[in-house]
């Protein structure tokens, strides 16, 4: 009955011979009723709000440094069409800039990433197949670079272009090779057995030069197959939950049966042994469905000579 109001009524009666209950203290409030507060069950935001473990407070001294005081640019491959560069320009480079571009060098120049296609060549600074300049924000320290041709080698130079158009290279990156975006166009087969391995192992390992081949990335990558699911599964064990639904309400009823007997007695409720606390008190909790339930509580003294029992009838009606 979604969205309908539920009301719960409980009628409780305590049965059995009152004289039997003399030696057992049973609180008058039993069975105690607990109407569970409505709350989110399987809706809402991520269920696991990150909680600091007590005593594990963040210490700001752990911050990573803003800079390492070295001028450097590093290139990484993200996929066949994207690379990522990060860099740092050290303070001490100012002199070089001033010498090269004049006192106004910094102000009059534009910070630039010059990306070179250096596939299968030994790059000397001027022999790239192609070079592209990317204007970068003054304060940027990293950049995603889109390249139209996969399966090529690239390096990037971080530099300044002066007012006269000259390029001052501050740092040159490592060279990376982007992957193919489709099947190889090389179909010559080459086979080997384990015994032949050593020969290849010592042979020069230059990558074969391949003509361009721009084909769509395979269907799988566009399909993004099972991405959500895969993402969840390979994550550490953390629940991510369903989207919120419409207005809702849940109510459940649980009863707590509690009491006390001699600390060394044994106690059986509903046919199951119940552990007593050291002081002889006990507590058992039951989810109460609609209808009538009988609770049998039986205690037996340690020597088995004495027994006491109490039976309670519970009725719940929900409409």
């Amino acid at each position, binding site marked *: 009955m979604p969205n309908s109001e539920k009301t719960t009524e409980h009628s409780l009666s305590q049965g059995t011979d009152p004289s039997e209950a003399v030696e057992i203290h049973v609180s008058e409030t039993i069975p105690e009723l607990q109407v569970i507060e409505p709350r989110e069950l399987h809706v809402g935001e991520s269920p696991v*709000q990150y909680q600091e473990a007590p005593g594990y407070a963040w210490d700001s001294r752990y911050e990573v*440094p803003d800079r390492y005081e070295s001028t450097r640019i590093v290139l990484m491959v993200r996929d066949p069409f994207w690379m990522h560069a990060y860099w740092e320009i050290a303070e001490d480079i100012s002199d070089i800039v001033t010498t090269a571009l004049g006192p106004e060098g910094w102000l009059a120049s534009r910070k630039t990433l010059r990306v070179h296609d250096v596939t299968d060549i030994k790059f000397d600074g001027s022999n790239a197949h192609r070079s592209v300049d990317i204007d970068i924000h003054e304060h940027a320290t990293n950049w995603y670079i889109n390249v139209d041709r996969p399966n090529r080698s690239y390096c990037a130079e971080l530099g300044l272009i002066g007012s006269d158009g000259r390029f001052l290279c501050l740092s040159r990156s490592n060279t990376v090779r982007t992957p*193919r975006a489709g099947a*190889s166009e*090389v179909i010559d*087969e080459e086979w*080997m057995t384990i015994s032949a391995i050593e020969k290849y192992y010592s042979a020069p390992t230059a990558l074969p030069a391949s003509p361009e081949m721009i084909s769509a990335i395979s269907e799988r990558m566009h399909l993004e197959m099972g991405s959500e699911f895969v993402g969840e599964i390979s994550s*550490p064990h953390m629940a991510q939950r369903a989207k919120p639904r419409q207005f809702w309400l849940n109510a459940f009823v649980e009863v707590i049966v509690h009491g006390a007997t001699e600390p060394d007695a044994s106690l059986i409720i509903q046919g*199951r042994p119940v552990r007593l606390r050291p002081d002889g008190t006990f507590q058992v909790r039951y989810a109460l469905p609609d209808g009538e339930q009988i609770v049998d509580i039986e205690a037996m003294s340690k020597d088995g000579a004495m027994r006491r029992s109490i039976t309670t009838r519970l009725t719940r009606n929900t409409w």
Partner: protein
Amino acid sequence: MGDEKGYLALILHAHLPYVRHPEHPDFFEETWLYEAITETYIPLIQIFRRLANEGIKFRITMSITPPLASMLQDSLLKERYLRHIERLIELAEREVDRTRWLPELNENAKMYLERFREARHLFADEYQCNLLAAFIALQDRGCLELITSCATHGYLPLMEISREAVNAQIKIATDYHRRTFHRSPRGFWLPECGFNPGDDVFLKQEGIRYFILDAHGVLFASPQPKYGVFAPVYCKSGVAAFGRDMESSKQVWSAKEGYPGDHDYREFYRDIGYDLDYDYIKPYIHPGGARISTGIKYYRITGKTHDKQPYDRDRALRKAAIHAGNFIFNRERQIEYLASVMNRKPIVVAPYDAELFGHWWFEGPEWIDFLIRKATYDQRVFKLITPGDYLNIYQRNQVSTPSLSSWGYKGYSEVWLEGSNDWIYRHLHKAAERMVELAKAYPDSDGLKRRALNQAARELLLAQSSDWAFIMKTGTVVPYAVRRTKEHLWRFTKLYEDILRDSIDEGRLQDMEYRNNIFPDINYMIYADKA
């Protein structure tokens, strides 16, 4: 070789990041390990052991990463797991009482109580808290081929700038594996299947014979692999690359079509940690008071509804058997076809995260059980095999250079290199560079300096775990992942500065050794290796 037409290689990749906080009595992220032990590792051990005891011959490949193996061997975490499972047993006992008048839930409560008690028994009594012994025994009985992975599951394609760091991730892992499992690993699970052409040379140096790639890593290899992903290719180094089969993968992984989404299977997201009265459940959830999963879940997936029906174990197991049969039927047809067009027996490689089975897909271990039984008794088309076995059968393979790739979203490095996590690399790369600098500047040190150098290597390795970047991207426990990255980097940097100044703070070093004790036998000189 028998009269089978081809082979199926089931590969389970078991990994968790190194999470161990001795400085805190009750640390939430450690429960990742405890849950995986109860829900995945122990059920898998039980199933493999039972199959072996019944004399069923099967071959499964399993990677157990060094961080996971280290945690399974750690005495503090063993003690804490015992405490954890005992608390769960107590909760399950209370649940058996509480659900007394709800018979459908009560059946499930009893099931959990029994499972938890069995888990405790297997862990504490049968294996004296050393689950690795169970895996080693299964290896020795010829059921499992255990392989390793990077030392701390570092994602190699984004480590390329430091060849020494790549070398260390591979070498430390294989050394650790040999010491732990008493055998040299034949195979290597590249974390996230992340491969950069050339990394195979480091694997070769460690005697590794094969690794696994996602399908396009092999399909886009050059020259074009003649048999696609259904036979390995040799890199020029002679290490073999096996490609993942998309078809079998999809049947299990896919959110829409995959088996784990079946309506009869247990619903992962309905846990009593969220459902029950707060005061009642409080002792069993996050020590800080947040509701978290307990592992007790009473409902089945049911369908696209919030009105979930109670879980029916028998019905779910019948479905797992049907799904295992379906998987086998599909493999038979696939392999028959492949065999008809190939002039050798094809291998279908099906890798999965081990934690999928049992933890996320509750019936997953039973599905594997049915799969092995049915594959053994009900068909003759294919046999279960490991990639290592296949290389023994077919020693001659095509030479081809696999493509840079991963099995992450979109197939490359975007998951680990995007707006949320790209900031880490400048620091990781700098630390790796400094580690190499230290190893070269202070070769063969001893005493306090040696300890500091070794600890610097540990902190660097731990910072490199791919898990942190992954968590930052997927947005689950981001602050924890950020903190772990920064803390390891901070400790590394302190050690670096101390060593250069020749003034090592022994108290601080001791604290670091106490917290981050992975790889007790590490030798920092690995970073001075020519890479």
